């Protein structure tokens, strides 16, 4: 009550200006506060500067390349930067990047979610620790090692699977196989799936672990079996987290370079079948062409890098939109 009386009676001294009041409310600043403020603000600004510098660089060099391009940059099925005038287009790369990432996601997301559910809701504690550790190890393997393993182990052993797919699903067109070496989008997708599995698993596991006990008990008390508890309480609660986890994985799959470059036998055209070798991705194309490219060739590769950058941004934006649309129903309201 004391403070109220003081504010109610106007003080005899002249009123402090709003700026002075604001400063007083903030309290006395000490050197430590100022240093920390400067450091954190500086870090934030630095991040923006770096982002702007990258975007500016990409846009500037890309615009040089695209202005010299004789073919349509977005639809041309060729990449001839050594000739005058240069002709190049990204259609093949867009297709290859998206297809290989979709294959990877289709394989990795269900497996990762299943592993995460097993670790959080089925495995005994003695087992879940070591398994989680092995998954962390998978994430620590460098991508070139995955590439080598893919080229030396995966590729030579794919013939059986390819034959089987061709026999039973060849009629779809997507899984027909003309018998070429299995250095195709499917093998790339499988390898990418293994590479993005740990990140999706780990994030999903964290999310599933945070499901409040009371939601699981609510389902149990209604007579739900363990699987029904997971379906009613765990998966809906974790859905937006699993989407975020998948987007992290997708980001890695879209930009993966060395593993794709080592396994794929690239061509600059589009294969209707996932099993026939050929095609290419943005990152693989940049990695394999950059060292031999001339000035225009480099700028053209940079232009393709800018497109990859934009695709990644769009994917992230889409994921955010999906999460936001479900916000009213998310566990955060509980």
């Amino acid at each position, binding site marked *: 009550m004391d403070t109220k009386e003081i504010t109610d009676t106007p003080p005899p001294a002249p009123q402090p200006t709003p700026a002075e009041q604001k400063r007083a409310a903030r309290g006395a600043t000490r050197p430590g506060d100022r240093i920390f403020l400067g450091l954190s603000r500086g870090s934030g600004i630095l991040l923006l500067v770096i982002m702007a510098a990258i975007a500016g660089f990409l846009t500037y060099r890309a615009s040089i390349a695209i202005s010299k391009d004789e073919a349509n940059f977005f639809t041309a099925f060729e990449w001839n930067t050594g000739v005058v005038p240069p002709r190049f287009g990204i259609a093949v790369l867009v297709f290859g990047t998206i297809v290989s990432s979709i294959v990877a996601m289709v394989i990795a997301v269900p497996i990762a979610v299943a592993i995460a559910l097993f670790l959080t809701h089925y495995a005994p504690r003695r087992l879940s620790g070591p398994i989680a550790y092995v998954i962390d190890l998978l994430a620590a393997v460098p991508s070139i090692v995955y590439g080598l393993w893919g080229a030396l182990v995966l590729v030579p052993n794919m013939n059986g699977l390819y034959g089987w797919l061709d026999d039973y699903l060849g009629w779809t067109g997507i899984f027909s196989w003309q018998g070429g070496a299995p250095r195709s989008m499917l093998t790339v997708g499988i390898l990418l799936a293994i590479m993005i599995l740990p990140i999706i698993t780990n994030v999903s596991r964290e999310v599933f672990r945070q499901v409040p006990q009371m939601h699981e008990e609510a389902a149990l008390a209604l*007579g739900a079996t363990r699987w029904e508890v997971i379906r009613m309480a765990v998966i809906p609660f974790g859905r937006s987290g699993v989407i975020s986890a998948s987007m992290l994985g997708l980001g890695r799959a879209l930009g993966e370079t060395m593993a794709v470059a080592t396994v794929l036998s690239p061509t600059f055209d589009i294969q209707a079948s996932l099993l026939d070798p050929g095609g290419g991705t943005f990152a693989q194309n940049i990695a394999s062409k950059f060292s031999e490219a001339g000035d225009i060739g480099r700028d053209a590769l940079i232009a393709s890098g800018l497109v990859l950058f934009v695709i990644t941004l769009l994917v992230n934006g889409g994921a955010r939109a999906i999460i936001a649309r479900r916000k009213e129903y998310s566990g955060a309201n509980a």
Partner: protein
Amino acid sequence: MAKRIDVSGLTAYYGSHKAIDDISMTVEPRSVTAFIGPSGCGKSTFLRTLNRMHEVTPGGRVEGKVLLDDEDLYGHGIDPVSVRREVGMVFQRPNPFPTMSIFDNVAAGLRLNGSYKKSELADVVEKSLKGANLWNEVKDRLNKPGSGLSGGQQQRLCIARAIAVEPNVLLMDEPCSALDPISTLAIEDLIGELKERFTIVIVTHNMQQAARVSDRTAFFNLSAVGQPGKLIEIDETERIFSNPSVQATEDYISGRFG
């Protein structure tokens, strides 16, 4: 519908720790039985043994018998899942499924039990929400999330969800402890109506509440911290609060505890 509960020689453990020791009691159908006692005396644990929720806790196990009419809940070949479909439960904190609408929350238990036609579901949902005195407040927003309701409304939603599957027994673990007095009154009125159809067991820390809503009251106590909780006595509520037969009960309800 409402069934009698007959407990004999029930002991519950958390790992090697004995939480409640050798409890026997009978709960009459179509009545409200209140459990009172100090914190840690095992009344919630005992409540959770009545629908086999206790064993969900890691290390939780039970010895003894719980008969629902003539069926032993812990008998051979009895599936805990089917027990919980017969014995519903309402928890301390309102816990509607945050990802489901009001309608889906109430229908959740039914959907577990099999497939229903849309019109059948709608009928049961309406009946249950009316039974929980919530229908008039939510009938225009059945498709909105249940987590948007007030705490008291959420708790009545949870009661609607529990009674939608027509259990034989309804267990309530301090259902009003997170609610304001007006919401508490609404739940207490509701309990009075529900006992016409269900056997109700309620754990409460609020002795006035026990006196208001229950027909019989059981007093639990523990001799010291770390010791297992015991049933001291169970009797008509009126008797417990006016003239209990054990001195410890009188000390507790008159505030001379500890």
